[in-house]
Structure formats: structure tokens, C-alpha cells
């Protein structure tokens, strides 16, 4: 079995999808959480000067989606055919687009007025449009009572859970117009491995 070391900060953030897939797979790993003061020392060692990074027997992989997909594949949870894999990838990318829009106003907008404006546009316009697409795409997979792809959990669910955590924290009933998505959140939370991780993971602001 390879050795896995996941480097990130004290938070869920961009590392959490990988942590969720590692939990679903039951794969042991070193969950390294760097202090900000340590980052200048670690940054030059990372392929693109960023975290998260997954070190697999000494090889360093960066970019959160690449990492999550790799971990998903390690336990056969990335889709069973090329088309299934493309569907899982497409869903994950859609969720990441939403996460990036949130990061844009949360982390990268300093002007308070602009921040509030972007957040409003996100919750009033962008997010409802895309949740509508996501609900429809879930339903397209055998009525939407299972998972996004085939008949099992994939990295698509990991990214979706991270997105729903963030949007529900802001707006608790945000998923009520999307019943299949709301029900899926509960199914992910009780998935073996993930359920235990959610109960024991550090509670962090991001």
C-alpha cells in the first residue's frame, strides 16, 4: 500500500474533498495541517507553490481536483467507464465553479461593498441557476435517488458535500427547492467511512 501524506492548513477548504474520499476508501494517511508560519518553509517544496499537496510514496501531486480524483480512483470510486468518469468529472467541475465563485468574494474581494454585492449576486442568481442544473443532472441518473454517477459514490459527491456545507452555513434552507440534492446530502453524510470522519474531523472556521 502506498504511503499518503496530505499537506494543507487547519481547515476543510480545498483539501476536504480528498479527505472525504480517503475516508470513504478507508485509506490511512498523514493529515498534515500546517501553521501559517510554517508555510514559507514548505511553499518552495510544493510543485506550484500551493496547497493542498498529496505526497504518494515521495511523488507530489498538487491541485485539489487532481488529488481528489486520484484518491477516488485508488478505491474504484471515480466512475466505472470512460463516460461515467467524464460525468463524475463534469459534476465535480460544476461544484468547483460554485466554490470558486464563493472564494472570490470570501477570500479575494477586500472592498466590503463589492464583497456584499458579489455575495448577493451569487446567492440570488448564480447559485439557484446552477442548483437547478445539478438537480436535473442528478435526476437524470435513474431518478436521482442514488448518486450522481452509476450506482456508487464518487468524487462528485465529495465536492458536492463541501459546497453544500458552505452554502447551507450561509442559507440553511438553500436546498429546499431541490429535494433530490437535499436527500443526497444526507446519504453522503451517512456513507460508511465518511460518517465516522464527519464525526471526528476538527471543527474549523473554513
Amino acid at each position, binding site marked *: 500500500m502506498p504511503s499518503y501524506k496530505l499537506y494543507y492548513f487547519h481547515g476543510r477548504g480545498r483539501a476536504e474533498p480528498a479527505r472525504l474520499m480517503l475516508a470513504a476508501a478507508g485509506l490511512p494517511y498523514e493529515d498534515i495541517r500546517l501553521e501559517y508560519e510554517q508555510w514559507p518553509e514548505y511553499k518552495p517544496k510544493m*510543485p506550484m507553490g500551493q496547497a493542498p499537496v498529496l505526497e504518494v510514496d515521495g511523488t507530489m*501531486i498538487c491541485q485539489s*481536483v*487532481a488529488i481528489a*480524483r*486520484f484518491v477516488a480512483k485508488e478505491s474504484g470510486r471515480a466512475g466505472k467507464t470512460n463516460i461515467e468518469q467524464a460525468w463524475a*468529472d463534469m459534476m465535480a467541475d*460544476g461544484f468547483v465553479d460554485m466554490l470558486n465563485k464563493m472564494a472570490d468574494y470570501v477570500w479575494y474581494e477586500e472592498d466590503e461593498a463589492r464583497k456584499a454585492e458579489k455575495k448577493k449576486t451569487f446567492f440570488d442568481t448564480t447559485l439557484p441557476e446552477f442548483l437547478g*442544473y445539478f438537480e436535473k443532472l442528478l435526476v437524470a441518473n435513474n431518478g436521482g435517488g442514488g448518486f450522481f454517477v452509476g450506482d456508487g459514490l464518487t468524487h462528485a459527491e465529495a465536492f458536492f458535500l463541501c459546497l453544500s456545507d458552505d452554502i447551507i452555513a450561509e442559507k440553511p434552507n438553500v436546498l429546499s427547492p431541490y429535494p433530490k440534492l437535499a436527500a443526497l446530502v444526507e446519504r453522503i453524510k451517512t456513507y460508511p467511512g465518511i460518517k465516522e470522519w464527519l464525526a471526528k474531523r476538527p471543527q474549523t472556521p473554513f
Partner: protein
Amino acid sequence: MPSYKLTYFKHWGRAGVLRLLFAAGGIEFEDVRIEREQWPELKPKTPMGQIPILEVDGTIICQTKAIGRLIAKEAGLAGKTPLEAAQVDMIVDGLSDLQVKIVDFFIEKDEKKKQEKIKEFAEKTLPMFLDTYEKLANSSGHFVGDALTWADVDFFSLMFFLKDHLPNDPLKGHVNLTKVRDNVTSNPGIAAWMEKETSH
């Protein structure tokens, strides 16, 4: 072999790399290029209200990188092992991050702000990015292993797109990256495709 139908606008944009991947793999595909005016009618028929989309035996896939990975796998350009595939993915994701910065100046409507953004991009953002990517490419001119992958093709595609927006060749002085570009342009399928694409 499945039937492939790619739909996008006419320009290079997000589909340029996808068409290159089909060309590199010698894979036949229907290359549908729509006019702007056709977009409103097509939009509701797409999975996430966006293009490019790829129809594969009736299933419609969206998201450029999901599509790219699918074609790359068919063409044998997605990496030879799961770890190599992850390395290909990470290179492509980094290029995608750079593309966000490009889109930002591309769609800027205020001309003065646009020029400021292009200046910042050309003088700071891009050079820093290329310094990082020079180290990630090897001396045989590949990002992963020693054969062509989607990572190489994607890098070339973005540099090709940037060509018209920058005064100088940004790869000057970057030995490995220049080799990557050369490897891509000398791939027979890609060479033939580029000849067709740039001859009108």
C-alpha cells in the same frame, strides 16, 4: 468507436485544445461551430448552460476539462498510470488557473483597466507562471514521462491563444517549455490540424 460531436463557437477559446486532442489521437469527430445568435436556443439543451459540450453516443458531457480528459483517454494521452494521470491533471488544472486570469483581462470592458490588466499579466503573472512550469517540464519537452500527453497539448493550446495578445514570445529563455511546444507542433495529427486551422 463511439461517435463524437463537439459543439462550441467558431473561435479557439475553450474548445481549441479539444479539437487538438482529437487531431492528435486521429479520432474522427463532428466539429460543430455555432454563431453567437444560435446560442440562446442551444443553451437550455446543455447540461449546465455552457459550451463546449461533447455528445458521445447520445450522452452530453460539459465542462472543458471533463471533456478533455475523456478525449485524452481515448487518444492514449491521459497518462500511463494513475499517478501519471494525476500529474497530467495537475498540469492542466494549473493552466486552467492561468486561464482565469486571461479571461479576466479579455472580458474587461474599460479600455484603460484592460490595458493595466494586460500589463500586469504580461510582466508579472505570466512570467511567474512560466518559471514554475519550466521546472515542471522535463528536458525532453514533456510534462509527464517522456511522451506526449494532454498536459503538453493544453500548454501549447494556451500559448497559441496568447500569441495574438502579447508583444513578444513569452517562451523565450524557457528551454524545456520551448521543447514542449515543438513536440506538440511536430505531432503529425496536430501539425495537419494547425495547418488547416491557420490557413484562412
